[in-house]
């Protein structure tokens, strides 16, 4: 068993709970006497609140209290440090002052005895504003006040001079819009104070960070706070850090003396819980006459909020994916009247690789080289940005395998040269890439007298399958079957585990869980070989433990009997494992997407008809959930390529498609056949499982692969996402001037 459970494909151990509705999400908790908070949200994007008229709202049924900047407890700022465990993305406190920085900002919170009463009263709050001209988009921001320097910048060699003297070169600017995470489950907080202790249910990708931030904000000790997030209806990054709604809930609970629930309405999921920011990216590439890259410059600007600087590190991959002596990567930001952006699945790399991998396609065409061959000739063999070897890099293998399975050799390079019926067929491809990270982690495993194992770690399962792979790791070490392993996650009272983000959960958590399992077995052996133990005549190191049985020289006993005989509840192991040692290797994951699109110009219909993705992430712990992560990321990437954009009114910075009907994500009907090849090359330099993490890499490069295929089908190069039909159509008349 221990040979097969890692790398096998068991189904999710929490699947039944989820599909039967038995899994409690944050807003499914109803503590006694709970009240409901509903926000009043600003209807302007910039200015000041001049008056809040509560007269009608106060008369509304069931209202308990109404909070706003004139009536809210004085709280503290968190230093917002990830390393200290108290990071938030929007550092301004709710109701801190009368300023409005974005449309959809909390300007009041009505607390009432039911959601319906709170909402009805919230609609009756009349807010007056002194409205100022809003900065509605990136261009307006740059024009109004320029840019600020970002982080993650890099340079080597002399990219300017080598560009000027190169045989072939390109210089294009790419743009990506605001994308909004839109997890199915809305952000939600249920906060309760008991004396000076705060308990919170939150839909969170990082319970410990929320606990740390709440402790700072409320000025209390971390041990006075518990945060639970056992089930999350996904987050895609929007639930990494606590947002203002959670502070409003915790403060309102303390002020009213009742548990308070605040659920963020769908409309405000577009405003006050982060988004992937708008970017502009200038790519200047050049090659010698052999098609070798001699100069790479990737300069990006992203929009951030007026309250915080969030940097979308679009050039993070550009530093190391291709071999080139002369490289410049720079990130700048400009302030706009939108909420603070945040990480969204593969932050930096997702928009960055749209630009880079589109530009590489354009560069290959300019140099007259097949895009696959061009990449194979230019992929870096070591991380030139850090001057380190890669721990494991199979991108050439991934690219060749995917090309073979996709049938790239059937492609005729001329745009518009492949046609079937009404449709032009386009083939495109792009590389994908994501950093592999691993952080310190604690875990606890108890082998219990009832024959089960009980595992705790304060990380989270955000829908990716963490519960299942943790159980697999315990099963692998102990030999216990999955059904006898209870995994508990998402609770700050458990040993410290990682934030569920950055694709690092697997690599971070499993070594700690495995080590804790081994320590529990050690303790079990120590019990068994002690004076009262069943194997008191055997040295602990001579005792073996397999499939729940302790044995020595043919004498075997189930471990439950050993514990039972000594009236011991459990044998326990606690472990602390460290982060990755990044001094010897650069740890990254690699892959390639191959995409077929079909363009029917007679009805202006574009669809992605086929995807083959080969992904090199080291070892896949669970092939079912791993494949599911890549398929899901491919679908999300397809949506990014094709549909997704939060549209803002350029006159007032108000998001206009803030709902599930008009903010378009890919539906089931948009999903083509997706063929995922998981290369299986364990990366033992990274951890004992050889696993690097798989949640994000699949979305990187997808939009570029689609854009490159669209160019091949249509001859049109779309450098601004999303690639909607209107950008490909001919004969569109000039609009009437308003």
């Amino acid at each position, binding site marked *: 068993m221990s040979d097969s459970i890692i790398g096998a494909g068991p189904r999710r151990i929490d699947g039944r709970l989820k599909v039967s509705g038995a899994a409690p999400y944050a807003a499914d908790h109803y503590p006694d006497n709970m009240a409901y908070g509903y926000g009043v949200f600003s209807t302007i994007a910039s200015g000041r609140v001049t008056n809040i008229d509560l007269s009608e709202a106060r008369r509304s049924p069931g209202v308990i209290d109404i909070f706003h900047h004139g009536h809210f407890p004085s709280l503290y700022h968190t230093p917002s440090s990830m390393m200290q465990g108290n990071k938030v993305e929007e550092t301004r406190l709710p109701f801190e002052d009368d300023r409005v920085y974005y449309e959809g900002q909390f300007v009041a919170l009505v607390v009432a005895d039911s959601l319906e009463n709170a909402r009805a009263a919230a609609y009756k709050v009349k807010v007056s504003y002194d409205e100022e001209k809003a900065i509605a988009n990136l261009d307006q921001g740059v024009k109004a006040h320029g840019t600020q320097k970002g982080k993650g910048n890099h340079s080597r060699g002399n990219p300017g001079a080598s560009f000027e003297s190169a045989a072939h070169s390109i210089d294009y600017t790419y743009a990506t819009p605001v994308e909004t995470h839109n997890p199915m489950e809305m952000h939600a907080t249920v906060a309760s104070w008991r004396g000076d202790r705060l308990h919170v249910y939150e839909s969170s990708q990082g319970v410990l960070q929320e606990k740390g931030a709440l402790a700072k904000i409320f000025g209390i000790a971390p041990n006075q706070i518990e945060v639970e997030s056992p089930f999350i209806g996904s987050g895609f990054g929007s639930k990494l850090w606590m947002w203002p709604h959670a502070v409003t809930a915790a403060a309102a609970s303390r002020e009213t003396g009742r548990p308070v629930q605040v659920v963020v309405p769908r409309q405000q999921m577009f405003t006050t819980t982060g988004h992937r920011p708008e970017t502009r990216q200038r790519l200047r590439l050049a090659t010698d006459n052999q098609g070798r890259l001699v100069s790479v410059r990737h300069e990006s600007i992203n929009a951030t909020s007026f309250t915080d600087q969030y940097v979308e590190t679009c050039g993070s991959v550009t530093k190391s994916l291709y071999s080139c002596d002369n490289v410049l990567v720079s990130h700048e930001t400009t302030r706009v009247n939108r909420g603070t952006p945040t990480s969204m699945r593969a932050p930096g790399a997702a928009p960055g690789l749209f630009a880079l991998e589109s530009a590489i396609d354009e560069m290959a065409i300019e140099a007259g080289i097949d895009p696959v061959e061009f990449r194979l000739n230019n992929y870096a063999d070591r991380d030139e940005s850090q001057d380190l070897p890669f721990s494991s890099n199979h991108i050439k293998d991934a690219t060749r395998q995917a090309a073979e399975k996709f049938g790239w050799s059937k492609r005729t390079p001329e745009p518009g040269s492949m046609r079937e019926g009404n449709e032009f067929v386009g083939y495109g491809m792009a590389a994908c890439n994501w950093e592999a990270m691993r952080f310190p982690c604690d875990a606890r495993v108890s082998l219990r007298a009832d024959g089960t194992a009980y595992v705790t770690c304060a990380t989270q399962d955000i829908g990716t399958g963490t519960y299942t792979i943790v159980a697999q790791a315990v099963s692998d070490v102990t030999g216990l079957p999955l059904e006898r392993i209870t995994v508990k996650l998402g609770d700050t009272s458990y040993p410290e585990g990682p934030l569920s983000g950055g694709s690092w959960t697997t690599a971070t958590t499993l070594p700690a869980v495995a080590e804790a399992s081994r320590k529990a077995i050690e303790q079990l052996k120590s019990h068994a070989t002690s004076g009262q133990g069943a194997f008191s005549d055997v040295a602990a190191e001579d005792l073996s433990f397999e499939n729940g049985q302790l044995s020595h020289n043919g004498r075997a006993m189930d471990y439950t009997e050993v514990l039972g005989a000594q009236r011991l509840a459990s044998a326990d192991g606690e472990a602390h494992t460290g982060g990755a040692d990044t001094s010897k290797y650069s740890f990254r994951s690699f892959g390639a997407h191959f995409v077929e699109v079909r363009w029917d110009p007679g*009805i202006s219909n574009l669809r992605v008809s086929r995807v083959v993705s080969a992904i090199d992430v080291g070892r896949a712990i669970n092939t079912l959930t791993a494949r599911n992560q890549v398929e899901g990321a491919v679908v999300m990437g397809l949506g990014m390529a094709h*549909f997704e954009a939060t549209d803002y009114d*350029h006159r007032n910075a108000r998001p206009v498609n803030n709902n599930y009907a008009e903010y378009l994500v890919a539906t089931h009907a948009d999903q083509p056949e997706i063929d995922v090849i998981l290369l299986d090359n364990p990366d033992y330099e990274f951890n004992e499982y050889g696993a690097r993490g798989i949640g994000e890499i699949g979305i990187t490069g997808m939009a570029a692969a689609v854009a490159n295929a669209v160019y091949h089908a249509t001859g049109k190069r779309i450098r601004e996402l999303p690639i909607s039909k209107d950008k490909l159509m001919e004969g569109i008349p000039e609009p009437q001037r308003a």
Partner: protein
Amino acid sequence: MREFDYARADSARQAVSSHGTNEQAAYLAGGTTLLDLVKIDIMRPEQVVDINRLDLNEIETLNDGRTRIGALVTNTALARDERITRDYAVLSEALLSGASTQLRNKATTAGNVMQRVRCPYFRDGVSPCNKREPGSGCAAIGGYNRSVHAVLGTSDKCIATHPSDMCVAMAAIGATVQVQGPEGEREIDFLDFHLLPGDTPWKEHALKENELITHVTLDAPIQGSRSGYLKLRDRESYQFALASSAVIVALEGNTIREARIALGGVGTKPWRVKEAEQALKGQPANEQSFQKAADIVMRDATPYEHNAFKIPLGKQAVIRNLTTQTA
């Protein structure tokens, strides 16, 4: 929540009487528009009259060949009805192209006729909107007006599209709307039911304040015709039409004997184009004829900042659909 009076009616007459002439009264059938808009505070009914108990669930074939559909027949039931799929394929296809299975299971025939616009400026509760607040202006003009805004039938007071697919098929088929008022019943030609925005975009239909739709009666099918609905949008499912066409064509040899054309997604009401139909009559069923008809359809179109592409797209919806139905 905002409180309202609730009455459950057992007959159409009783419903009408409970509703009265109160401008803030609303009939409740499937609720897929009303409840949504109540939750976001855009509709604030003071009186809700639940008509779900009314006996309006039948689809009947009348002696004169017409088909009478009860107001409460759900979109799902109508789309799957054998008589509809046989005689009015365009209607079944239009219904199935709209919304989602869950919504179609709740949504009713009359409710679909009465659905409100998807314009974000109507729905945000704060922007100028002449539908929501007569005289306040139209924020869609000069704003973000790509997907749910029209190029046909617009005015400087409103440019929102009528979002229905079903109504586009009904406009092509030809129909009458039966309504119950306090003084009895009357019929309204389907093409006269929805109103152009003009200077009064808050007046969306020909119903008097207290009238209730009881039935929609489809004209008899055109003998020997084929029909279909073609909906063009960004994604494959769950999106309102950017442009759609309902087409019914009868051929004699390769000559068009009769044609019906209506469009969705491009007009401020379900957009029947009789002039284009006339132009097709007696013409050969070929691309040139279809192109000519499509040009007529869009002759008076007004492109706005973000939706000018709907003019060529609408033409494509017409041409491809005609091509398919005559192939």
